Structure formats: structure tokens, C-alpha cells
């Protein structure tokens, strides 16, 4: 039971990093990416390959994965951020599909649908993170660091520029801000932070396969933000907690048919997304003044 809870908490922290990093661009920059699971996947595969062939140290895998994710993000941001917002969503959806195809078809490297199994235990400063407790500690520290980085970033002049662009791009440009460059950097930061989650995930579950990195996973990450509250620091973490506790909670409702649980869970969060968009677009702990984040 303790193992189950620790495992759940590790997954919540990893999801918290995913949701927090996505919220950085959705909530503060108004850039809507559907490719977060692709970056998550790329970093998880990177970590798995590095661990199998090079080094099991997190201090090698994390910077490498962050760099690769940031570089990959340029593939979608350079072409699509020049044009209006819809194009970024579409380009990121396209990247998500291409990434999934690469994960499942580039069999020599990714192992195809079977994935990469037997990722060795992670090490940090030469200490093996074999127990769930140590893994949880590292995950929580990473979550705290990512949250702190985002918290600080949005309060710097860079963060104010982002919010200015989100609220009125034309006005921000008129004040001499290079909107495209600022948005491109924001997407690169978000993708790099997402890379940390992928590395932790690969080491934690010790195998990676394409199924974890589908467009549905991208939507799930987005659902965490939307349910929790966009543009808030703790909203994404709350959302991650809710999304992970929901399936655990549903198993206690014994009158539900066990076979349909996965579908019921999806229906619940799908319906939650629709209802929140209609009645409370700013999420559970978002500001009730909708106009701030969502309407520009």
C-alpha cells in the first residue's frame, strides 16, 4: 500500500512538471501546444538510450534531454509562430503525430511498439536511486525547482513581455518587443522543462513505449491545466493530482463495471473539460474574472 501511494505520488510529481511546463506557454504566453506528449516522449527515449548506452546519471540525462527538447521545439515554433495562433496548434498536432510515428516505426532505435525495456536504475552523484522513496524525493525536488523557475520567470521582465504579448500582441510589438523571438524562447523553455519529466518517467517505470506519448497524453496534460486553472502556479499541480486520483478513486466505487472504468474516467474528464469551458474557463483555482486569461 505504501508502495502504491509512493508510486502514485511520483507519477503526480512527473505530471506536475509536465502540466507546469505546458502552463508556462498556455497560461502566460497564450501559445497552445498539442505536442507536449511528443516532447515528453522524446526526452523519455533520450533518457532510456543514454542510460542503456552511456551513463545512468541524471546529471547527464536531464541536460541532454532538455537540450534536445528545446532544439526540437524550434521545428514547430520557427515556422508557425510567425503566423497566427491557430497555426501553432495545428503544427504542434502535426509534430505530435510525426513523433508518434517515429517512436513506433524507427525500430532500430526506439524498439518499435514494444519500446525499450530494462532501463537501468538512475544514479545521482554516484548514489543509486533504487528505492521508491529516493525516486520520490528526486521527483519532488524537480517539481519544486520547475515550479520555482516558472514562478520566477513570469515575474521577470521576460514574463511581463510574455503576458503583454498574450494580452495584445500588436501593442507589445508597437512597444518594440520582438514578439516572435520572445514566444520562440518561451516555447523552448517550456519544452526543455518538459524534458525533465520525460527523464524521470523513463527511469521510474524503467521502460518506454510509444503508447505513453500519444495525442491523448497531450490532451490529458492539457486537461490537468484546464481543470486546475491556467496561468496559476499551483493550478497545474492540483490538476495533475485530480487526474491521477480520479482513476484510483473510481476503483473504490464497486458498483461501477470494472471493464468500463477506463472509459468512464475519460468521459468524466472530457465532460469536465466541456463544462468548465462553458461555465468556468479559468479552471478550479483560476481567477473568476475570465477576461484575464482566456478571452484575448
Amino acid at each position, binding site marked *: 500500500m505504501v508502495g502504491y501511494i509512493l508510486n502514485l505520488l511520483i507519477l503526480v510529481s512527473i505530471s506536475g512538471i509536465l502540466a507546469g511546463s505546458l502552463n508556462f506557454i498556455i497560461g502566460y504566453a497564450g501559445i497552445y501546444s498539442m505536442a507536449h506528449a511528443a516532447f515528453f516522449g522524446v526526452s523519455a527515449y533520450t533518457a532510456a538510450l543514454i542510460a542503456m548506452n552511456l551513463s545512468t546519471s541524471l546529471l547527464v540525462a536531464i541536460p541532454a534531454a532538455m537540450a534536445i527538447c528545446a532544439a526540437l521545439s524550434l521545428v514547430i515554433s520557427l*515556422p*508557425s509562430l510567425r503566423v497566427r495562433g491557430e*497555426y501553432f496548434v495545428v503544427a504542434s*498536432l502535426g509534430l505530435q*503525430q*510525426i513523433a508518434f510515428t517515429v517512436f513506433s516505426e524507427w525500430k532500430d532505435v526506439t524498439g518499435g511498439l514494444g519500446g525499450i525495456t530494462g532501463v537501468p536504475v538512475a544514479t545521482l552523484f554516484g548514489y543509486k536511486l533504487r528505492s521508491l522513496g529516493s525516486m520520490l524525493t528526486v521527483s519532488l525536488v524537480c517539481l519544486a525547482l520547475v515550479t520555482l523557475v516558472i514562478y520566477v520567470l513570469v515575474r521577470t521582465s521576460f514574463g511581463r513581455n510574455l503576458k503583454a504579448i498574450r494580452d495584445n500582441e500588436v501593442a507589445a510589438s508597437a512597444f518594440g518587443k520582438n514578439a516572435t523571438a520572445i514566444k520562440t524562447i518561451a516555447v523552448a523553455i517550456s519544452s526543455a522543462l518538459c524534458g525533465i519529466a520525460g527523464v524521470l518517467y523513463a527511469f521510474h517505470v524503467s521502460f518506454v513505449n510509444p503508447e505513453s506519448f500519444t495525442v491523448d497524453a497531450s490532451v490529458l496534460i492539457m486537461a490537468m491545466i484546464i481543470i486546475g486553472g491556467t496561468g496559476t502556479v499551483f493550478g497545474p499541480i492540483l490538476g495533475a493530482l485530480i487526474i491521477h486520483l480520479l482513476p484510483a478513486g473510481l476503483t473504490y466505487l464497486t458498483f461501477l463495471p470494472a471493464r*468500463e472504468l477506463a472509459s468512464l474516467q*475519460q468521459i468524466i474528464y472530457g465532460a469536465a473539460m*466541456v463544462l468548465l469551458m462553458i461555465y468556468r474557463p479559468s479552471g478550479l483555482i483560476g481567477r473568476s474574472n475570465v477576461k484575464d486569461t482566456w478571452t484575448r
Partner: protein
Amino acid sequence: MLFLQLLVDGLQLGALYALMAVGFAIIFGSTRVFHYAHGTTYVIVGYVFFYLAERLALPWWLAAAIASAAAVVFGVALDRFVYRPIQRDEGSFFTVFVASFGIGVVAENLIIIFFGASFVSISTPLTRVSDIGGGIVVSYLGMFSVLVAVLLFTFLNWFLAKTDVGVALRALSENPELVRGFGLNPRKLSQYAFAIGSLLVAPAALVATCVTGLTPSAGHRVVLISIAASIIGGIGSLRGAGFGGLILGLAESLAVWKLSTGWSEAVSFIILLAFILARPSGLFGTRARV
């Protein structure tokens, strides 16, 4: 020889993609709703048809008519009960998109509960193939899909050029303020756009269900293809969306010539990214605003 066969297959696939894409393009072009649940409409048509024709053994034309009616009801209901309340407070493009996505998730899983997650297919004598000379084979349904696409495009061109509703819809996509100024009701026009757009996806869903079968998650791919085709063709241009669909169908089919089949899906999106990079206004679009 393989090349010619792939070309013929690509034309059939392209016709289906064109039909899907034009429906999306009408809705997106005139109402600016990023209608992700367009794929859901497709899946609903397929499953209603499957249920009526295969399980209840109704005649195919009756099943097809009811399934098409279901598409229209679904599209119009979404516009009225989901998109409109969101747009009431000037909902952003993305708020609508998220709600649309949520609808897709709910519908997909309801279908899984009722029909199971696995693949369903309908057996029809029309899927039989015939040789059209030189060893190239075509199925009757394949020819039928090309024919339906051509007929519907002709009809649509006439409808948008000659009827009042058609002209008003084109006006709505160009300047909603002016439409209001002329005393027309954009809300009402948006209902027409959803009705027509949803109806157009029905033939593609019916044919594709017979040819390749259907899964509850097919909608994602359908809407992604529709979006990609609309952008390649140029947002706001129906002709463009049709051509875009055709190009993607041909590209996906011809990709099999040089690549293994698993990669063919990625080809569409690589073309899409190339278009966004080089020509974001698409083939026929004129207004790639920044």
C-alpha cells in the same frame, strides 16, 4: 505498375479526404469555430450506419439516410448547446477548441462502452474489386467515392454561388460585421454552416466504414487530415480544402511506394509542416494574417 495502382488508390483516398476536409472548411471558414469534434461526427455516422445496417439489418439506403441525419443533428446541437454559450462571452478560439475536444473524448468513450474499442466493419458486395485493365484494380466503392466527391463539389459550388444562404455563408467568412450590418443573423447562418459541414462528412464516413472499417478513435485522424487539408488548401477556400484532401490522399498512398506503410501517416503531417513553413496561406488562401 505498382505506381499506377497506388495512384488510383490515392485518388480514391483523396476523394474521401476531400469530402472530410470540405465539411471542416465550411464550418471553420465561416464561423471560425475550431471544430475538433468534426471527427466525432464522422465516427457517429459510421457507428449509426453500422448499427442500423449490420445489427438491425435495415436496407442500406435507409441506414445511410438516418446516419446522415444524425450527423446534422449532432453538428447543429453542438453549435447551439456548446459553442454558442462559450462564444457568448467572446470565448477565445482555444476555449472552443478545448470544449470541442472534450466532446470528442466523451463521445469516443461512450461508443467504446456500447460497441467495444475494437474495429467494426460492414460486409457489402460493393467492396469487390474489378480489373480496369493492365492489372490495375478498383473497387466499386472506390469509384463511387470519387463520383460522390465530384457530384457534391459541383452541388456545393452551385449552392455557394447561387443561393441566398450560400452567398451569406461566404460573406460571413469574409466579414461577419458587415453580415450583421445587412440585417442577417450570424447565429442562424452558423447553424446552416454546421448542418452543411456535418452533412458533408457523412458520405466519407459511410464509404470509409465499408472500405476500411471503423474504430471509436478514428475521429482524431479524420479531423487532423481535415485541418491539414484546409491549411494546405488555404483557410477560407473550399476549393483549396478539396485539393488539399486530394493531395494528402495521393501523397499518403504514393508514400507506400518508397516507405513502409507505417510511415505513410507521417507524410501528411510533414507536408503540412512544409506548407506552414513555406506558404502559410495555402494554395488558394489569400489572407494569412499575422
